[in-house]
């Protein structure tokens, strides 16, 4: 905290500012217009992820406007002295994958990025949240942001997730319970045995989806799992012992008070599938698309009617009877090595349905290399999945990876909004295991009953 002047919001210092090509060009233009510099280039890191093609690198970018946006970032980084992990870099990747992977993301930091999924970095016990382009400009110019203190919400998850139930299902289960605006105005702290048992990849998936419940930030108190992940990474602290000492002071006090408390039992959760056009419209895979009679108000019934029409679904249809045309395994939610391992375990020895086009898009070049070293790429290729280059890809379809109108996709991404993956496209959010299983079966299927092969 830099200052708390009377009558003004407190001024928060930003330890790490991540930028990408889509939400930064207008911010740099603003700096130029005002004759301002980037105050702390050493605390600013850039990469290209949103609109990069996932074709083999070196293929020319045919979308002239996308190419211009990437060039603008390259030019801005040169002009203002910002480190850029460019499209041909061995460290390029989705900004929320490379931050942790390179060790930029550390416990106790304040981290912002012009991207709502910045909440991902909260997995390390950092305060990390998405901002708009005006705020990107603000941070570039001042390294600070005026911020009112948000409300706090504790989400405590007792027990352990069952086999076939992942961090993605936990995130969807939470949104199902509290709604897509259930945590608006709050920062979430995730706690409880099920959260403690998650790997860092799982915690990142969970924190990533905080914004889908309305929270700008979600966090997990750092512990041995966190330290083990950060240790040895390229930009991890050199003075390790003093870093650990600082980080050990970060967890909330046992008797800390929260503005809201939500409790869940992990053992009650199943693999989930969304059926509507927001992430709160979600049911266990063993259930059915809800009936209109299950909706409480006229407004909910009207919204559901719109969703049924858009999604091409009838109320009461069994989720396992829904067939898919496309499968996307990737995004800042589920494109890390553990996600690819989980999907590959399901895919191994099987074949993608002849009616399905399935693609795997690793979150970063480093994830891609690690997966190839383990032979996961071969498992996917043998099964008939496309193995592509890293980027945001079909999560939001800013690059050429999009759905055609009416196409139905099982996707490991974070948003099933209308048109998100391409105009008229129909998105069902699922875990990596569930996506791989749907690719093979050609329809949704409960991965808890999967026949694993060697």
């Amino acid at each position, binding site marked *: 905290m*830099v*200052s708390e*002047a009377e009558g003004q*919001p407190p*001024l928060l*210092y930003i330890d*790490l500012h991540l930028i990408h090509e*889509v*939400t930064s060009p*207008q911010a740099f*233009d603003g700096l130029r217009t*005002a004759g*301002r510099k980037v105050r*702390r280039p*050493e*605390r600013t890191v850039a990469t290209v992820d949103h609109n990069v093609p996932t074709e083999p690198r070196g293929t020319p970018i045919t*979308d002239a*406007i*996308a190419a*211009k*946006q990437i060039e*603008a970032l390259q030019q801005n980084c040169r002009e203002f002295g910002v480190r850029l992990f460019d499209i041909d870099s061995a460290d390029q990747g989705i900004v929320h994958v490379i931050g942790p992977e390179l*060790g*930029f993301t*550390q416990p106790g930091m304040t981290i912002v990025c*012009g991207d*709502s999924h910045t909440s991902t970095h909260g997995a390390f016990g950092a305060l990390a949240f998405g*901002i*708009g*382009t*005006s*705020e990107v400009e*603000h941070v570039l*110019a*001042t*390294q*600070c942001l*005026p911020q009112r203190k948000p409300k706090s919400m504790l989400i405590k998850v007792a027990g352990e997730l069952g086999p076939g139930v992942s961090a993605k299902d936990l995130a969807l289960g939470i949104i199902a319970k509290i709604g*897509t*605006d259930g945590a*608006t*105005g709050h920062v979430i702290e995730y706690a409880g045995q099920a959260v403690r048992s998650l790997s860092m990849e799982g915690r990142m998936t969970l924190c990533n989806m905080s*914004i889908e419940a*309305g929270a*700008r930030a979600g966090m997990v108190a750092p512990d041995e799992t966190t330290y083990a992940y950060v240790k040895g990474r390229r*930009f*991890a*602290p*050199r003075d390790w012992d003093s870093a650990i000492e600082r980080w050990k002071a970060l967890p909330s006090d046992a008797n800390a008070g929260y503005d809201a408390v939500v409790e869940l039992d992990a053992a009650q959760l199943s693999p989930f599938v969304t059926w509507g056009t*927001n992430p709160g419209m979600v049911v266990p895979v063993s259930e059915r698309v809800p009936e209109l009679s299950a909706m409480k108000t006229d407004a909910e019934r009207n*919204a559901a009617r*719109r969703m049924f029409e858009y999604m091409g679904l009838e109320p009461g249809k069994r989720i396992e009877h829904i067939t898919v045309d496309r499968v996307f395994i990737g995004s800042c939610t589920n494109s890390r090595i553990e996600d690819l391992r989980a999907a590959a375990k399901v895919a191994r020895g099987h074949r993608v349905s002849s009616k399905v086009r399935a693609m795997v898009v690793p979150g970063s070049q480093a994830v891609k290399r690690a997966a190839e070293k383990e032979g996961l790429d071969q498992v996917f290729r043998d099964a008939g999945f496309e193995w592509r280059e890293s980027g945001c890809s079909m999560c*939001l*379809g*800013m690059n050429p990876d999009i759905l055609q109108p009416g196409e139905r996709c099982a996707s490991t991404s974070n*948003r099933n*909004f*209308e*048109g*998100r993956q391409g105009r008229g496209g129909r998105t069902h959010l699922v875990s990596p295991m569930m996506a791989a299983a749907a690719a093979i079966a050609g329809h949704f299927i409960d991965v808890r009953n999967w026949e694993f092969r060697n």
Partner: protein
Amino acid sequence: MKAFNVHKGKVAPLHRANIDTDQIVPKQFLKRIERTGFGEFLFYDWRRDQNGQLDPGFPLNHSRHKGASILVTGKNFGCGSSREHAVWALDDFGFRAVIAPSFADIFANNCVKNGVLTIVLSEAEVAQLVERATKHEDYQLTIDLQDCEVRDEHGFSAGFQVDEFTRHCLLNGLDDIGLTLQHEREITAYEAVHPAPVRLVS
């Protein structure tokens, strides 16, 4: 930032809950590097059919709502992506204010930075405004940021709350980067005690 004081304007209703920023401005228009000219992309996939023709059934396309500068809409407006392009599109289309039962946090922040006022009214008040905007030809509202009040000429009036500092910035059209830079000395002092970790620099 544009100052906002008292604004009187025509109302357009779009009574749906959870309108996300992907609907407000679809992703295919986020590749532009300019900050202006986003108005034509506002609600693009809802306003236009597959061939780019205006859909006469969409409320913003009704002739009676042409020239509207106040949008009345459902709860959790602006959820999802942080894209400020959503606010640039609303602003460029001519909207000075949005009234809803609730807003997503990042979207509401982005509005303030662009001099667009977000006003939270109850579900019942919003429903009443939607009904009036649908019933009356040329339905107008006056938004008074001095008195924090919304009123029409048919007897509707409602107070609203706004953060005092935000109100001050909006009333005066203040550049908040300039305000932060007034704390230059404190920022420098903070940085002297909290230098960037060596690894970030190298």
